[in-house]
């Protein structure tokens, strides 16, 4: 009815579409399937509906939540279960999300992240017929009968990362390595879980290089990439040339710091060479935590009726629950002596010759 008004609406729409495309690009893109591409055979359909609730990191974190979702997707393809994921924006969402999934008949329900421990305990008693999987959740007051606690021996995998870093800092196979014998660790929240990464990393490094100096810094959360970058800068200024980050999405910032200031990076949770494109120039390896395998395994146990509620399952080196990713672009550069040392350490941990500490 009047042109001016219409043109304003048009501009507004254009603006908002522009705004919409930014999150649109990051729209919960299904996490890259890190598992092997097995041929999908027609499995008999089950009537199991599996679901997960992310922590506030949400999908697209390139590590923890994406990995759990990959486990669900694998179960959808291979076991024919129906899957659903609810993302949490705030802590208040945990309870309502799990509650809605349980009401809608999803079983099992995976709560991803230790921050949901209390909520799982509370709702496990409200919905006694629903099974829950608590990823990284340690239940100090006993595991409810319908909950399986999925835990990882992060210290074992981090020990191997420490062996790589401790030896690499003495080498000169890449121009970013210096002769100062300093390596760095960036942690997320200062909690026992992350301390396990730190402890393993330090122990591994010292085992092959007793004089190495390991500097550890914490971002205080798992989301602030700027903080991760800042700590990366700080470590590199203090002469660190290999940095291991166990800090969720903060690690992406540390990675950028490594690329800008020249240091090698060790990723966490997923094989971050694959999940973070363009990281190959500094990504030495990643300490993988196979959340996907744990989640898939728990769903499989539901399908074949062997779900063991009330227990904790530990995923360590022996179970392939943690481990190092390939060296990718560094495959030919990394000397055989490092690869041999890693293999030896892995064997020694599995056989029990080496006991890796859980606290630094």
């Amino acid at each position: 009815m009047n042109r001016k008004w219409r043109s304003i609406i048009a501009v507004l729409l254009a603006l908002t579409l522009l705004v919409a495309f930014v999150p649109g690009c990051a729209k919960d893109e299904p996490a890259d399937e890190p598992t092997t591409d097995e041929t999908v055979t027609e499995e008999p359909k089950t009537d199991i509906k599996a679901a997960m609730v992310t922590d506030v990191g949400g999908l697209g974190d390139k590590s923890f939540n994406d990995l759990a979702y990959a486990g669900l997707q694998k179960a959808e393809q291979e076991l024919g279960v129906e899957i659903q994921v609810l993302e949490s924006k705030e802590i208040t969402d945990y309870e309502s999300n799990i509650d809605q999934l349980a009401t809608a008949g999803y079983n099992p329900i995976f709560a991803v992240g230790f921050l949901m421990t209390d909520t799982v305990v509370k709702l496990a008693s409200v919905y006694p017929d629903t099974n829950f999987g608590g990823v990284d959740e340690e239940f100090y007051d006993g595991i409810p009968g319908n909950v399986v606690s999925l835990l990882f021996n992060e210290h074992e995998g981090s020990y191997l990362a420490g062996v790589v870093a401790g030896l690499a800092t003495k080498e000169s196979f890449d121009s970013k390595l210096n002769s100062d014998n300093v390596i760095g660790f960036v942690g997320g929240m200062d909690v026992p879980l992350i301390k396990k990464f730190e402890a393993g990393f330090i122990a591994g490094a010292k085992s092959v290089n007793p004089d190495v100096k390991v500097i550890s810094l914490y971002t205080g959360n798992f989301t602030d990439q700027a903080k991760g970058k800042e700590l990366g800068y700080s470590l590199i200024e203090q002469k660190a040339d290999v940095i291991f980050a166990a800090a969720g999405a903060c690690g992406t910032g540390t990675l950028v710091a490594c690329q800008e200031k020249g240091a090698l990076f060790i990723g966490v949770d997923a094989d971050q060479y694959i999940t973070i494109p363009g990281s190959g120039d500094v990504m030495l390896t990643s300490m993988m935590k196979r959340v996907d395998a744990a989640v898939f395994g728990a769903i499989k146990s539901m399908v074949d009726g062997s779900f063991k509620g009330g227990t904790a399952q530990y995923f360590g080196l022996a179970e392939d629950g943690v481990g190092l990713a390939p060296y990718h672009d560094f495959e030919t550069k990394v000397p055989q002596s490092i690869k041999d040392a890693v293999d030896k350490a892995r064997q020694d941990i599995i056989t029990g010759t080496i006991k890796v500490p859980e606290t630094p």
Partner: protein
Amino acid sequence: MSESRETLPAHRAWMTVAQKVGTPIASVILAIGIGSVIMWASGYDPVAAFAALFKGSFGGPKQIGDTLLRSTPLILTGLSVAYGFRAGLFNIGAEGQLFMGGLVVAWLGVALTGLPWVVMVPLLVVAAMLAGAAWAFVPAILKARIGAHEVITTMMFTYIGRYIVSWLVVGPLKAPGQIPQTDALPIGSQLPRIQTLFSEATLEALPFLKLGRAHLGIVVAVIAALVVWFILKYTTLGYENRAVGFNPWASETGGISVQWTTVKALCISGALAGLAGAVEVMGVHHRIFDQFSSGFGFTGIAVALLAKNHPLGVIPAAILFGALSAGAGTMQLEAHVPQKIILIIQALVIFLVAAEEIVTWFIKRRQKEALSHVG
């Protein structure tokens, strides 16, 4: 002629009210419309999505309770920001004051034992408000004495407050266990859920009282809104606040101390944010931890904007944001729309309220057209 002259003032008054209420409503409707287009363009069904959103936020007593739960802190932070705005101050640091209020409650609520509930709860509420006010006091003094801009100082104080809490929950105040958080408040320091106040029989007879997670904090928040409205409208304190916000030079000339009013305004604003922290700790989490607030202090700015800084308008504005948050889960579950769409709609509401001039211009244009038709 004489008839139209008599009706004109009433008509005018009605128009201003309609305009005040109309522009935010128009903005919300427009935001929903644009949000629908975005959803449709991304391959989702907007009708199903909004149906699910509504079901998840108002579909039953439990859902309404969830909406109220999420609106409660937003009413209080919205009030906090609005009160500051009315004195011409932009308290961008409500988040930090909220953390301080929550911290004091989480600490005192556990440390003081043995007091009856009726003493304990008011005591904690007052302590949290004092803590919030104290956290706004330094920025207030800096603003009043040397003119340091409150946007910078209150924001910096937010960082300080947040990091103090971060440190305390991993250090001195940490409860046993893996999670960095304080000990749980005893029952005597909690704000109970509304449905627990009624007997099983009453709840059966009146099922709308089964409000799920909604707690008494909503009552506290509504009372606070009424009190702030009363203060602004009927007291000298409120008059001075508005006068300074309207025109500080004229107020100074008229005998109002701008400095003193600034200090009072920011401290009251801080107290309201501190109260928000208190109800979250006492009603929802029963303890404090690093991420106990998902930016309620910042969402409060949007709530105040949408409410046009009217203390009673803050209530529906906060309920809107609470409903968007409460319905997001159902929207993901039933319409398979990612939760991020909700963030887009929230952003659109804020954007459109900020760009309200356009809507106002449109309305004026319509009025002119209408008048010209009459003429």
